[in-house]
């Protein structure tokens, strides 16, 4: 018996309705078509085969097996996290020398008067050095405090640069895959 003889639904229409029929939507939404499809399936072996495949698909999908996760998965993540935590801690710790150096520099400059005296001192030192190099004067004696200020500025710049490089690496947008891949291959 063919499908057309057994009921009013054509096989092509049945194939379209098999999905909502299998997941129960057709029974809820269109009871008449649901009954017609049931009647069709009873008389059409081809569509019955299609229906069997349709209802077995979710089971087959749920039964798909994957290899077990390798032991290195959790260990690799923990290593990546530990290095992130260390870098975060280091990033915060760097604020201490930065703050100390900045305080020292600010204390030394102590407002506009301090800045102008440092600036005039630097200009005087440079002019003295220029005179010394041309042979028209003696080597200027630079105050120890100015050398300290210069060293503090160099140290602050270096620490701030290092700090910035750590902060860039800690940015969440940074891809972790390459790090994770390295950890996995270790």
């Amino acid at each position, binding site marked *: 018996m063919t499908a057309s003889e057994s009921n009013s639904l054509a096989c092509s229409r049945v194939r379209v309705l098999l999905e909502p029929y299998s997941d129960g939507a057709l029974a809820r939404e269109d009871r008449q078509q649901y009954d017609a499809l049931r009647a069709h399936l009873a008389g059409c072996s081809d569509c019955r085969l*299609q229906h069997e495949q349709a209802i077995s698909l979710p089971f087959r999908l749920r039964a798909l097996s994957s290899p077990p996760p390798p032991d290195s998965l959790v260990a690799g*993540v923990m290593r990546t996290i530990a290095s992130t935590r260390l870098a975060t801690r280091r990033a915060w710790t760097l604020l201490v020398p930065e703050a100390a150096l900045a305080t020292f520099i600010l204390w030394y400059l102590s407002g506009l008067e301090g800045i102008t005296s440092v600036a005039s001192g630097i200009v005087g030192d440079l002019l003295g050095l220029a005179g010394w190099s041309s042979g028209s004067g003696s080597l200027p004696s630079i105050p120890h405090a100015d050398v300290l200020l210069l060293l503090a500025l160099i140290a602050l710049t270096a620490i701030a640069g290092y700090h910035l490089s750590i902060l860039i690496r800690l940015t969440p947008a940074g891809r972790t895959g390459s790090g994770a891949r390295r950890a996995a291959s270790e």
Partner: protein
Amino acid sequence: MEAEVALDARLVGGVTAVEAQASTAAQLVGQATGGDLDAFERLMRSLQRRVYGFAYQHLRDSYEAHDLAQEIFVKLYRNLGRYDSTRPFEPWFWKLAANTTINYRRKRIPMPAELSHELAGETQNGQHDPALLQALAQLDPAYRLPILLHYYADLSLEQVSRSLNLSVAAVKSRLHRARAQLRNALAEMDE
């Protein structure tokens, strides 16, 4: 009647187990957010099988799956602070996993040889459903992701919709099309 009672008991038992699992996960998330690395490790161990399996079924490459699963967990750790503990953990987590997977695929360099190599290995080992795996591999990622989240990660339609930022109707439609494509591919293989 007895069978019905037994079924009810199993269902109640199942629901209780799921609830217990969810409450444990929520507890571990709370501890991990507070900086407890042991709790985070336990949380990861409870999720790793599904996360690795999900990554593997999506990428069909064990090395890439390992890489993606690690990326998902590292992102989880970094984003724990953003998790709203008044909401269920699983949909939030799988949304993060789905986004990481989508971005991972965008950055990934395609390697055409890998698929046939992996599938050939699996067929020889006889561990899987090779026809279905092949059909799944041919599926567009936009359809494969909801299929894996719904059937493999066992998320409800609503959870899938929240994970992928789609309406429930859109998820239903994608699942419907994905199943139809899978059935067609399977039928072609049978012929």
